[in-house]
């Protein structure tokens, strides 16, 4: 109950951020712009719309997640609103959970708005609604939840700018972590091999949430892959949150 109260307040605060709307506006611009792009290309126009649309939702969603994730926890500490909050009978982890939930509600609303524009465009193009796009967007949303958790982790001990840089770096690395397998094969020294292996398992494997190519090009999507990705994503986000709570639990609010 208290977690939900904090979540709703976080949502209220998040949707006041003008930069969030700027990002939303740009993302919608790109989604709509894909229509113009599609008219200039030869070949399947619909594919361009789908491709650019999904990529926009994913990329600008990440920007939003990093923006609000790194700002809203930090702000609470920086502006010292956390003093009165934590003096109430709540646990510190409840505060973090509430923040996380509130940020995810915000992102959900943003994703829904972007998706409506995206689907609207597809329908305008005389194409029918396909459920597999919903699955692709759901996976994007789970990825955003991970990004949010990582932003919260960083902002529980550093400034928004540094947290943004760290989180965005992890986002990039997370999409290349497949290539780690290649590095593991190439590395000769056993210690090096082990280190890279550990990194591979610790770092988020964000390609698990990317089925854009499959969806756009009508390739088959395995349902167990989707389920595995969902479970992996939820547990990864929870693990990161748990880590943040550990850091939060013992820190001084000065």
């Amino acid at each position, binding site marked *: *109950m*208290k977690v939900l*109260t*904090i979540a709703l*307040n976080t949502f*209220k*605060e998040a949707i*006041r951020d003008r930069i969030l709307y700027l990002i939303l506006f740009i993302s919608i611009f790109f989604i709509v712009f894909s229509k113009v792009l599609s008219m200039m290309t030869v070949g399947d126009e619909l594919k361009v719309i789908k491709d650019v649309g999904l990529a926009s939702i994913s990329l600008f969603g990440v920007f939003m997640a990093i923006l609000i994730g790194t700002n809203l926890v930090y702000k609470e500490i920086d*502006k*010292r*609103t*956390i*003093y*009165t*909050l*934590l*003096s*109430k*009978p*709540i*646990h510190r982890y409840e505060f973090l959970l509430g923040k996380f939930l509130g940020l995810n509600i915000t992102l959900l609303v943003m994703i829904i708005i972007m998706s409506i524009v995206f689907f609207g465009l597809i329908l305008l193009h005389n194409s029918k609604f396909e459920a597999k796009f919903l699955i692709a967007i759901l996976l994007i949303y789970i990825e955003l939840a991970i990004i949010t958790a990582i932003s919260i982790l960083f902002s529980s001990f550093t400034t928004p700018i540094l947290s943004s840089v760290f989180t965005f770096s992890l986002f990039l690395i997370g999409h290349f972590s497949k290539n780690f397998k290649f590095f593991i094969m190439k590395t000769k020294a056993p210690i090096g091999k082990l280190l890279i292996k550990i990194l591979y398992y610790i770092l988020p494997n964000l390609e698990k949430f990317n089925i854009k190519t499959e969806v756009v090009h009508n390739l088959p999507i395995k349902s167990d892959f989707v389920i595995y990705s969902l479970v992996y994503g939820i547990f990864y986000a929870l693990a990161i949150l748990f880590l943040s709570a550990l850091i939060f639990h*013992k820190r*001084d*609010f*000065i």
Partner: protein
Amino acid sequence: MNALEIRELYKSFKTGFIPRKKEILKGISLSVKKGNIYGYLGPNGAGKTTTIKTILGLIFPDKGEIKIFGKNHLDIKAKQKIGFLPENPYFYDYLTAYEFLNFYARLSNSNRKDNSKKINDLLNLVGLSAHSNLQLRKFSRGMLQRIGIAQALISDPELVILDEPLSGLDPIGRKEIRDVILRLRNEGKTIFFSSHILQDIEMICDQVGIIINGKIISEGRLEDLISEEILYTEVTVSGVAEKELRNFGETVISKGGKILLKIYKQEKIDDIIAFIVSKKGKIHSLIPRTYTLEDIFLGAVKRK
């Protein structure tokens, strides 16, 4: 059982690029009796806020023990009994006064049903009923202080901890908040508040603790700390020459024909009155000064 009991509290901060330990609290012990108003007095930087943050569990002590109604201060059940106003409070400025109190009411577990009545009562108590739908960003400094106090009282706490509740208020505001504090005591609540203003503490406190440089240098019931004993008497006279008064006491100032004297010996008072009357001079005022909190305070600060 004491409402608040602090034993041997130590806290240091690491500061600087190359971290150096700086001791802020050096073994604070104090106890606040249930139903009392406790004034926590100390100069700027003495460690009042640090003590209070430790009580609230916002920072963790290096050593020491804090009990709230016999329970460990980090216990949720202990926190349920506390209301807290931070120093220079910052709040969510996008909320209205009503929404703000409603948010904290929900976090404090209080019964949903009578939240609305409770909020309106509190807004009334701190004199903000007319602004219940105003966003906090439009509040003045003193209004924020008031809404902060309302926030501290939202859960009907048994122990109210206020960090400088009277700062930023005009004289009328100070009086109103002092009255609120007195009223809370009459309802059986315990109040712990910090201040560096002696008059506020002298006016309403039952118990006083003086902290200087991280140590409690004096603690007890107000009437035990300050005595009724007259230290000296200040007399203002005119119509006589300054040098004629040398025998009675020391001259503090002499301006515009008026002379202010400090007289230490009680028997000299009658003498000076007789003398002035005989010289056809005038006595403007005669004020006996007792031992006040200020004397304890200034004496202690000087000794440091």
